[in-house]
């Protein structure tokens, strides 16, 4: 991002010096421009896109078949101790050539294709993370906006509820709920997990709304008799969209890690469903015999969390460029 700023700066000055045109840009154009200049965020986008495309297209989703011919549940004979056949080192460098092979990520002890299993886990983990992101953002935004706008009793009650949820450790709250809804599918689990993770967003949004509600344009809207709902949704929330998007992204990254931790502790996703965290638990004891069963899901968790964190960082810089030298 520095290089961009440094190499971009003289160019701008040059343009100005030659009396060339100054380009007018809208707010969203500015944000987009800053975002795409953030190298980390761009790399994160690419990595995240690749993971999503790989996870969705390889084994397909629901009734739609994917390009990978094996199924995550079919057992079979274990070939070559179930070692991964994936090879990325070309032949002239002393490797086995670039190919996927029969079982690129190897097989587990009953011969299931581990690539298909990992993809299935990645799909579920991504699904859970997105649902958590949406639920947490919706609840957090509404709670924060109502508390910040109406103040008084509404604020006291809503913020005390937020405090109560904060007081319970996430692993405990989500774990208890995870056990209660066990066996009713990952979507319900994800929904409740989202209900455990909205407090941060609520606090941030409330803080923003508290300052925005004192602005002149809100006063103007109120004075012409605009309804509270319209003021909140048309005048205030659009101005907090930066904060909301950034925290939604970071919530998704946290959700991936929380879900996998819960599944690891046996409090989250359970068989027959699987997820990346679940895979790690299932094959935890295999680490010394078949370490690849342990590596792949972990690598995918890191890839997802890392890329989403980078995207979040880029978005934060894009919406709030005070701390960076990136020029508009």
């Amino acid at each position, binding site marked *: 991002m*520095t290089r961009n700023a440094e190499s971009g700066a003289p160019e701008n000055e040059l343009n100005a010096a030659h009396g060339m045109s100054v380009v007018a840009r809208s707010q969203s154009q500015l944000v987009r421009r800053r975002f795409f200049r953030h190298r*980390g965020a761009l790399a994160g986008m690419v990595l995240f896109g690749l993971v999503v495309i790989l996870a969705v297209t390889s084994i397909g989703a629901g009734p739609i078949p994917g390009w990978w011919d094996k199924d995550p549940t079919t057992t079979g004979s274990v070939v070559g101790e179930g070692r991964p056949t994936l090879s990325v080192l070309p032949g002239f460098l002393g490797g086995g050539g670039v190919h996927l092979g029969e079982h690129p990520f190897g097989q587990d002890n009953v011969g299931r294709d581990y690539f298909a299993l990992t993809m299935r886990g990645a799909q579920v983990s991504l699904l859970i993370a997105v649902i958590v992101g949406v639920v947490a953002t919706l609840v957090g935004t509404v709670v924060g906006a109502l508390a910040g706008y109406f103040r008084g009793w509404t604020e006291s009650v809503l913020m*005390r509820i937020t*405090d*109560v*949820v*904060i*007081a*319970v*450790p*996430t*692993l*405990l*709250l989500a*774990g*208890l*709920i995870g*056990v*209660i809804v066990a066996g009713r599918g990952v979507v319900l689990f994800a929904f409740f997990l989202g209900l455990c993770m909205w407090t941060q967003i609520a606090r941030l949004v409330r803080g923003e709304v508290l300052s925005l509600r004192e602005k002149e344009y809100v006063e103007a809207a109120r004075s012409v008799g605009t309804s509270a709902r319209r003021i909140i949704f048309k005048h205030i929330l659009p101005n907090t969209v930066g904060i909301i998007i950034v925290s939604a992204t970071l919530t998704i*990254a946290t959700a991936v*890690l929380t879900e*996998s*931790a819960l599944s*690891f*502790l046996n*409090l989250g996703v359970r068989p027959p469903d699987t997820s990346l*965290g679940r895979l*790690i638990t299932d094959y*935890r004891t295999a*680490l*010394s015999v078949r*370490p690849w069963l*342990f590596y792949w899901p*972990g690598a995918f*968790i*890191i890839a997802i*969390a*890392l890329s989403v*964190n*980078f995207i979040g*960082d880029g978005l934060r810089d894009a919406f709030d460029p005070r*701390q960076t*030298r990136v020029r508009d």
Partner: protein
Amino acid sequence: MLVFIARRLFVSIWVFLASTVVVFFLSTRIRDPLADARQLPDGAREAAMAEISERMGLDDPVLVRYFNWLADVVTGDLGVDRQGQSVSAALEGAFTATLQLITGATVLAIVIGIAVGVISALRQYTALDQTVTFVAFVCFSLPMFWVGTLLKQFLALDFNDWLADPTISPLFVGGISLIVGLACGSLVVGDRRSRLTAFGSATAAMAVLLLVLSATEWFADPGLGPIVIALSAVGGALGFTTLVTGLEWQPPLKAALVTAGIGVVAALALGPVLEDPELLTVVGLALLTVAISGAVGWFLGGELYRRTAVPASILTGVFTGAVIFTDRMLQSFADYSESVGGRPISTIGAETPNYSGTFWESGLDSVGHLALPTLALVLISLASYTRYTRASMLEVMNQDYVRTGRAKGLSERAVVTRHVLRNGLIPITTLVAYDIGTIVGGAVLTEEVFGWSAMGSLLFQGIEQGDPMPIMAFFLVAGGAIVVFNMVADIVYAFLDPRIRLS
């Protein structure tokens, strides 16, 4: 301020009460506590079910059970679990273990995280800063249980194997020296030449050090020896004086150096006392160190320099004490290593069962068991401290009063320590307080991975058996910590930043 604290306390108590209600209700719903009793043959079934119901109060409505529990808690009794064991007793042991696990890790993470964040902010947009940022992001995204298991499998086993024949391969020497050299080179401000010099000399020094350590098999029987102790004490004196006031003032520097000297002499004189001391002796010596070095600073500092001489002297004293302590511990390493079969880094539990040794050896036993979980915990929590410190520092560094400080000719050290650090660390204190609160609840994962029977075991026992009592005991501590530290954070923030309490 008192009104502010009283109001905050009142709110916290109600919030905590409300959250106990939530957790209690949820934990009565997780599982049927009579499930296994129902499986019993006809004759025994009724009796077993009746006994468990009686013990857990299953015949009462949930609300009654909650108030019974609350009434007991107020008198300090946490009830009995499904087997009839006292939960209070279990909690005591579990809490000690968890405290032991998280204390060192938290302190380390805070100190290292803030230091790295400050450095990274001071060298904004350098290669060092970019590397730190990237590493922080990776650490953010690590699944704790995955890293922990990997550390257990590879770091511990490989390290223990390596200790059997502690020679460092040339490749390793080169790698470590290069990393250290690069870090030193990027820390230096100046032109290309001085940076290259720093890089070159640091790399060479590190390489020589490693080669010597490897050739003398130092790692098999480590120790520092009086010369290294003396050198580090003097180095500490110079470093802390620079940090506190700068080397240009004589009295503080003299005080720190005298303290270092006393420390080194004490290390030699105290030899027999430190052979196998009691814990109380060590604590007493630590307090004595603070007192003596404080006195040295007070008297040598004189009227004019007291304010800087005392902290410089105390810091030096404590540092020298820590070096002596480390030296003693390292010296008993060979004996300890032998007594545990040459595998000092342990992967399971909090201590070697039935182990007894000198003060230093049992200390090493704890360190060996704490090493891996601490490393894992530090790796994960380091990142957020680094990022927040960096952001907060950068925000302060752009303030007008910092520019004023520079403009009126203050030294860079004064600007950084007096103007930037003091204000930049205010938001960090709150963050640290919030974080400490959540650590007890979050350590559950670490405990599970490293097989510690601590707070997490209470939680899992409760969840497994559908028994609210252990879960509530866990929550009283974990949730209580969150509520208390959130309150502390708010109060400290109001104390440090008057704008909050006056608005």
